[in-house]
């Protein structure tokens, strides 16, 4: 799968890459440090990703702002977007579902738990039929 991973924290990125590297199926990860970078990438000539993993708390453009722009675009709005965050704030959760998301995953404290969660998410989306570019 082509995955767009939007996350500003280096160690979080390391966590995802390490997790993905252990999986049998190979995934192509594109990293973006914030919403702005992600939009630029999506508007470039590069192929659109199959899914987006999105952090909420980021500098410059927050996850929710990015999500709003994404859902206003006639093409990009079909991209399944899964929130990956530490925020248990119910207001955030409701706002995200309101705008339109494909999932809301809380980052667990322990890395092992994290690995398991990510494995499940990616397994799930791999079993789905995706809108290929």
């Amino acid at each position: 799968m082509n995955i767009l991973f939007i996350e500003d924290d280096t160690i979080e990125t390391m966590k995802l890459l390490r997790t993905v590297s252990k999986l049998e199926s190979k995934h192509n990860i594109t990293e973006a440090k914030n919403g702005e970078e992600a939009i630029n990438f999506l508007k470039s000539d590069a192929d659109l990703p199959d899914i987006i993993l999105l952090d909420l708390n980021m500098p410059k453009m927050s996850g929710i702002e990015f999500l709003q722009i994404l859902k206003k675009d006639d093409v990009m709005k079909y991209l399944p977007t899964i929130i990956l965050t530490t925020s248990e704030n119910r207001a955030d959760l409701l706002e995200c579902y309101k705008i339109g998301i494909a999932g809301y995953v809380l980052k667990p404290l322990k890395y092992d738990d994290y690995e398991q969660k990510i494995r499940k998410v990616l397994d799930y989306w791999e079993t789905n039929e995706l809108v290929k570019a």
Partner: protein
Amino acid sequence: MVLKFNLMFGKMDNKEVLLLKKALERQKKARFKAEQILENKSKELYEVARHLEASNARLENLICTKSNEIDGAFVNIIDPYVVMDLQFNVISMNASAKEFFGYNPGEEFVNLSQLVHPDYLDYNVNYMKNLLQYGTFNKYRSKLILKDKSVKLVEINGSLIYDRDKNPIAAQGIVRDITRDEEVKHLLSAQKKQLDIIVENSPLGIVLTNGNQIIRSNKTFENLIGYTELELKSLGVNAISTPDDVEESTTLLKKMQLGEIDNFTISKQYNCKDGTHLWAKTSVNVYKNEDDGIDYQVAMIEDISAQHELEVERKQLLEDLEKSNKGLQEYAHIVSHDLKSPLRSISALATWLYEDYKDVLDENGVNQLRMMQEKVESMDKLIVGILEYSTVSSETVNNTDVDVNQVIKEITDIIYIPDHVQVKIVKKLPTLFADKTKIHQLFQNFLSNAVVHIENEVGLVNIDFTETTTHWQFSIEDNGVGIPKEYHEKIFKIFQSVGNNERSTGIGLSIVKKVIDLYEGEVWLESVPGEGTTFYFTLKK
């Protein structure tokens, strides 16, 4: 004959002339005497005639006087009626007068001037002078001391009595006792004065109106609004009210006119003379005047500017508080996120350090990494706890039916309960009408607090309840380490933990306290160190 006499005279001698002259003289004298007698006689006759005439006149006068007495405009047999001469000596009185004065002029001498009260003496003397000049008097006042020494205030209508020659000879009068009338009048005026004092000194503005027209206002209202009563009368109600208020009160006044309501109270603004506005509670009552058939309104105006200001201030404060609460909640979420993220990173790094370098790490190194993970874990718990605590009262309360038995089951499913500890529901717990999340938080904190502090071989946690008319009372009993008396209050304060257990953050019971406060309940405990603790708490039904 003269001729003859002259002839004779010519022939007569002097003697004869002298005699003749004497005879003539005698004759003259006799005639004079006769004339004198005649005159005397006729004089006598004249005198008689005159005398007759005078007595006739006297008779006529007498008749005139009598008729005067009778014809007096004020004769009324019911009221006391008095006739006196000009020296105030009573000539006659009717029965009613005799009764009133207590005197009988037929039997005793009565002089009215001697009955006048000293206070009225001067005034009455002056009045009598006027009477002599003008002939009548109307509503002449006097205060009299009667025979029985009682003092009466009287009003007299009277007139002079004249003889035939229009000379005053007496006076007549009808006396009316106005003592009682005056007393009533005095009382009324005193009462009016008292009312006026109340109205003028009332802390409420009072205005009497007829529709838009202002009829009277008291000093308080004038002071409040800055206009004088005269200005208010020409301005009217609408001119001193704001357009919105005029509309509202016009509607209400109409209802009042139709008899649908007798009174109404509105909070309205008045336009003061100095351009400012006065916030006032205005109570309007209808007052129907039976005499003129007009509906009046009595308006009581209470200055509530201060209250209004307070109200506005209170609203502002509440808004600010809400904002700051929301801000605080937001802040708590952001802080917790910002604290949780690095913890996740540290945890991941520690995990990788072990995974990637377990071959080179000795037992000590592995142990340190494990301790690091534990510290990270307890810090994460602390952050979750603080977030929970800070959002207990600020989040909206969503009350539904909450089956406490179900809640306990959910809690025991998710929290860590050591193998040796048993959680038991003594009897079926009630269903509360409350916010499920908060009830969950409440019991979860009590239970996790109870289960971790048990060092006995067999740990027991019993949940029970009783019911009062207003509250549910729950108890959570354990056979744990117990809590020394000096900590009984302290443990409900944030960050206060009694045990040396690594698992307690010192937040749990302060969350409990917050939830119980929210439901107007109490929390307390009984504990014997080494034997166990029972927590009690109440929740309002």
